[in-house]
């Protein structure tokens, strides 16, 4: 088996349909919709299409968990002993188990919400971040940026579970949130240990993290403003080892992305 499996070769059964992010970005309805008030971005029971939005997000979480499992698994395999320390691989193996469990939880939650596996399309750009050939970059991109995003998403869903008095959703999201905090800590620890004597490599890794963070802020998906569906979970990010400075910086980046998305929508709406 070869090292470094490209995104295009991820194996899926017949239920899954892959989508390209460009399809959504260049959907002609996007700019039109961006100028309309479709209600509060945050999950809430009195949000229009609340159940369908919840199901769609849950399916997105489910496929994200599959890709996180695959990414952690590939990190166990892709690097020889001299490229990635034994302990790092052990951490990634542990993450495989956690992500595998998260897939199981997400499938059960999907049943609870009334969705089906493969009901929505899958975008694999999360796995793409897990394909970096440098283990430090990969760990930083996946465990700090993506797992950091997972903290924000799970906290958002947990809050929605509370607001809707859904005991199943709140219970499950709380457990998954605990795992994600552990994964981010792993990323922070390995970044520090592997770049202790190589500040340039550390800076490159942090730059890669910022790039991944920016991608996942796309269109104002995550942030600290009311119009961001997923809110930055500062308290849990602190538990995971992010400093106030890092959280402020991410918040600023998210606000910039939200503003860019707004400007882009206005521009595209003007052209249509």
């Amino acid at each position, binding site marked *: 088996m070869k090292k470094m499996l490209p995104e295009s070769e991820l194996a899926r059964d017949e239920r899954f349909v892959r989508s390209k992010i460009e399809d959504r970005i260049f*959907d002609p*309805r996007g700019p039109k*919709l961006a100028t309309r008030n479709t209600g509060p971005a945050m999950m809430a029971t009195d949000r229009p*299409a609340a*159940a*369908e939005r919840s*199901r769609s997000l849950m399916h997105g979480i489910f496929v994200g968990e599959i890709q996180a499992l695959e990414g952690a698994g590939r990190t166990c395999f892709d690097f020889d002993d001299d490229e990635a320390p034994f302990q790092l691989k052990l951490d990634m193996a542990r993450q495989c188990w956690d992500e595998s469990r998260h897939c199981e939880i997400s499938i059960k939650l999907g049943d609870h919400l009334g969705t089906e596996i493969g009901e929505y399309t899958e975008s694999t750009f999360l796995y793409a971040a897990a394909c970096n050939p440098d283990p430090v970059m990969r760990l930083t991109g996946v465990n700090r940026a993506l797992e950091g995003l997972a903290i924000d998403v799970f906290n958002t869903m947990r809050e929605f579970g509370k607001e809707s008095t*859904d005991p199943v959703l709140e219970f499950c999201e709380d457990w998954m949130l605990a795992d994600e905090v552990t994964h981010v800590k792993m990323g922070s620890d390995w970044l520090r240990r592997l770049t202790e004597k190589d500040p340039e490599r550390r800076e490159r890794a942090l730059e890669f993290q910022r790039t991944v963070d920016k991608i996942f802020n796309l269109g104002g998906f995550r942030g600290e403003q009311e119009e961001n569906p997923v809110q930055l979970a500062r308290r849990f990010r602190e538990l995971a080892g992010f400093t106030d400075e890092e959280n402020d910086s991410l918040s600023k980046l998210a606000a910039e992305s939200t503003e860019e998305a707004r400007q882009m929508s206005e521009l595209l709406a003007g052209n249509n």
Partner: protein
Amino acid sequence: MAARVHVSPEQFTLIPYDANEIASIAEDVAALIGFPPNVDIEIEVDEELFAPLTGHMSDVIDGAARIWISGANFEDKKAPQHFSPEQARDDLIVALLRAKDRLSDGFDGASSDADITRAERAAWDASVNGRARELGVRVREQALRYEFRLQHGFTDVGDAAFDRLFAADSVTWEGLREICRETGAVDRPASKVPVDLLRQK
């Protein structure tokens, strides 16, 4: 004979939907559910909305059924921007069954869809979908139950009410309001977001 189903827009500009195809499906659906033949059906599709922003409204105004529906309801979830005739048929059956309810005596005095509460709507949807299933619509009971629970609570009382609605052959406006009292949904704070927000441009 003039067509009794009118679909707007006549020309879709953002997505390749065909107004004639939608009208034809609506005609078939109307015949299937025994929709009164003397009542015109006007269907307005909002082509700017896409998944997951689904929703539809059914009112009877000046003797005609007025259906507003999100373009997302007709969209093939596995092929975004593409029309799904199966999805359209299923959702039009549900929308027209609600319009048919409104034409019945049991819904005299019912609020319009813009004024209905989310809980009343969830209860009505549970009932209509139960009947739609008998007509061959692929109804996902658990999805409906979840929508009902969001508005009526995750309780045994709520679940029992859902089961009754889903199994009922018919329902009345007063019956729906009684369900809302039974589950405690009437005591919940009023929605801060207008129920017809997606319809507002």
